[in-house]
């Protein structure tokens, strides 16, 4: 608690909520925060801040120092991982344009002179549309996980422990994710993503759908160039799970609260966690790991993915729109009952009717919003996410190269709880 010592205690300062939460999060992460102050670190609402602020005297400079310490203590990614990520956009552009030598990348001999097909001269507009999301500087979360898992599965302790094929998995996972985003935006009729217009807002629904197909097809080709049939099957499963998850999301069941929750968790697995899980498993397979390690890698990815989505669903209620990059409360407006809502429904059975009619009547969204914020739902969601993070972190010890890269995987898992967007 060094920062408190540096503060003379007599000066009160009200610093921003973000600042405050960052400080308390850092303390909590290091296990230094008293239990009574936990809610300051995890999802404090504005009224809590105002109540607590007069009681906490911290110099602004102390707070800043603490944030700097927090940032320093947050591990930087290994250099080779960062390099791969920096290269990723270029790799994707190449895969989309099909400019890599066909024989090497696709193993497909293009018959000379059989047809003067322009398949290798992709329309400029198509390229622009396909590249659009990749050039926006997304978080590249999925490739990061895949690369770190690849390094952690490597048996030979070398720093440059990610093979070209494992890198391809990272690229493919990002491409599959992006293709699904493009289609989701059409289905959800979304106009903005990451604070920018969506593909369908710019170019229309039909083109967006076909661009999504295009990206997926190119991802498939990149995947096939690895030449490992098992890995192709594993990654193909992601595509099936994504669609099934989307279908599950469209259906509402008239059943018990438990059944509904199970349905939500299954949907969350299919829509989000499956990609993480199967990418991790694929890189483990490519590293030559046995089935136990493959399963461990899979479970890590799965738990990480579940936590990721749970926090996403939580942030839909607590984060500001600007940070999210899209309007908050989007899930409710789409008629989706996510974990915070399902937890809240246990306290307020009136929510059940709203859930069943998918918040379709006027004022339903506002009512549900109020129920959730007045309930214990957010805290319970965070608690569930924490369980998944901790399970993921626990599994890391079983990976071959966890001594070198395990900490990064732990960071990835636990930092879910600190996310603001």
């Amino acid at each position, binding site marked *: 608690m060094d920062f408190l010592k540096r503060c003379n205690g007599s000066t009160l300062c009200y610093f921003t909520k973000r600042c405050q939460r960052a400080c308390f999060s850092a303390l909590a992460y290091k296990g230094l925060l008293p239990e009574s102050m936990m809610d300051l670190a995890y999802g404090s609402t504005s009224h809590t801040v105002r109540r607590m602020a007069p009681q906490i005297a911290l110099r602004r400079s102390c707070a800043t120092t603490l944030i700097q310490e927090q940032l320093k203590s947050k591990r930087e990614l290994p250099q080779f991982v960062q390099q791969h990520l920096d290269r990723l956009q270029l790799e994707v552009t190449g895969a989309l344009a099909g400019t890599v030598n066909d024989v090497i990348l696709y193993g497909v001999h293009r018959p000379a002179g059989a047809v003067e097909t322009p398949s290798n001269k992709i329309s400029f*507009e*198509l390229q622009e549309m396909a590249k659009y999301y990749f050039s926006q500087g997304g978080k590249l979360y999925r490739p990061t996980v895949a690369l770190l898992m690849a390094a952690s599965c490597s048996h030979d302790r070398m720093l440059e422990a990610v093979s070209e094929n494992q890198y391809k998995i990272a690229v493919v996972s990002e491409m599959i994710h992006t293709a699904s985003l493009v*289609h989701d935006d059409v289905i959800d009729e979304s106009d903005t993503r990451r604070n920018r217009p969506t593909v369908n807002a710019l170019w229309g*629904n039909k083109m967006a759908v076909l661009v999504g197909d295009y990206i997926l*097809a190119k991802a498939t080709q990149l995947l*096939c160039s690895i030449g490992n049939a098992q890995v192709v099957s594993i990654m193909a499963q992601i595509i099936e799970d*994504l669609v099934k998850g989307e279908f599950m999301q*469209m259906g509402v069941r008239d059943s018990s609260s438990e059944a509904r929750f199970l349905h939500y968790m299954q949907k969350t697995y299919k829509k989000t966690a499956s990609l993480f899980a199967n990418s991790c498993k694929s890189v483990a397979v490519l590293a030559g790991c046995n089935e136990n390690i493959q399963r461990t890698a899979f479970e890590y990815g799965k738990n990480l993915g579940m936590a990721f989505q749970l926090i996403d669903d939580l942030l839909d209620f607590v984060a500001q729109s600007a940070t999210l990059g899209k309007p908050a409360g989007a899930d409710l407006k789409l008629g989706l009952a996510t974990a915070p809502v399902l937890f809240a429904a246990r306290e307020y059975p009136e929510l059940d009717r709203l859930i069943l009619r998918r918040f379709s009547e006027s004022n339903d969204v506002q009512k549900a919003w109020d129920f959730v914020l007045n309930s214990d739902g957010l805290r319970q969601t965070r608690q569930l996410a924490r369980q998944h993070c901790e399970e993921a972190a626990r599994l890391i010890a079983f990976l071959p190269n966890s001594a070198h890269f395990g900490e990064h995987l732990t960071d990835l898992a636990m930092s879910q709880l600190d996310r603001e967007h």
Partner: protein
Amino acid sequence: MLFSQIVRRSPQWKRAVAEAEKLVSYSGSYLSLQSSLSDEEANLALSVRKLLGTKHPLLQTAKDLFYNGNNSIQTRGLVVLLVSQAANDLKRSLSGSQPSTSAGTDCSEKILTKQRHLAEIVEIVYTANLLHRGVLDVAQMTSGNVEKLKLGNKLAVLGGDFLLANASVALANLCAPQVTSSVAQGIADMSEAEFLSLKHPDRALPQDLWDRTIYLQSGSLLAHSCKSAILLADLDDQSLLDNSFTIGRRVALIYALSEILTTNGSVNNKRETPEIDMSRQETFDWLENQGKLAIESINSSFPSSSGAVRSLKQIIRALSDRKCLV
């Protein structure tokens, strides 16, 4: 590819197709690869009924698929099966045994399970593309119930995605990455075709552009599939692969040309085969020439004693012979 147009098919074509179907034991559907529908999926499929009364393209597509058994899709599956059987006959003749000659013998063994799956995958992919091309833009939702049209869009996107996911898993199960990659190229090309169509929405296309559009729209997938059928037969002679690719491409072109020539009525839906900026006579000539070239390609690679080869040639002649065109 043509839905609300009326395509007049000659008796020769119908006969050729019927014989071919018998030869390859064609079931006419691709249900065997579909995983069983969950409740939600089935409910959504039934939701298509809600589109009745709207002009959403999905409705017409669904009708065509389920009531008319979309001919152009099924023909593609059939061609892949015929090429598969021809390839297997070739392999047998190379190793010295008799190729299949009649429909009466045990046909189902003449085509490998993997090749049958490939044919079904091809049909699934074409259908998915049909559904996805039927998605409406907001600007087009001018008449009728907008809510229903939006539902139609959701169903079209999801339905197409469902089919593509099935196809992806089935492709992966073939355990032949080269084949998967080929089919993926076909899918990518079909997306690109739509972009080309965007640039020239209304007027008739000059020959080279039309050729390119048709290749991307349907030729690429069929060409890659025919080549894949050869690969699945464990044949890897490069000239054979190239030739099969060419055969697939030509058949798609022939099919499109014959549709242009035998359609009556006007094109009322921009998704369909574009018009070509050639005189009817020139188009006939081109079609006939392509037919001859296709048959030459077949003859140069496959044994003429093969029943499948004969059947394929019959179909091509029925499509491209001037005498057969009404």
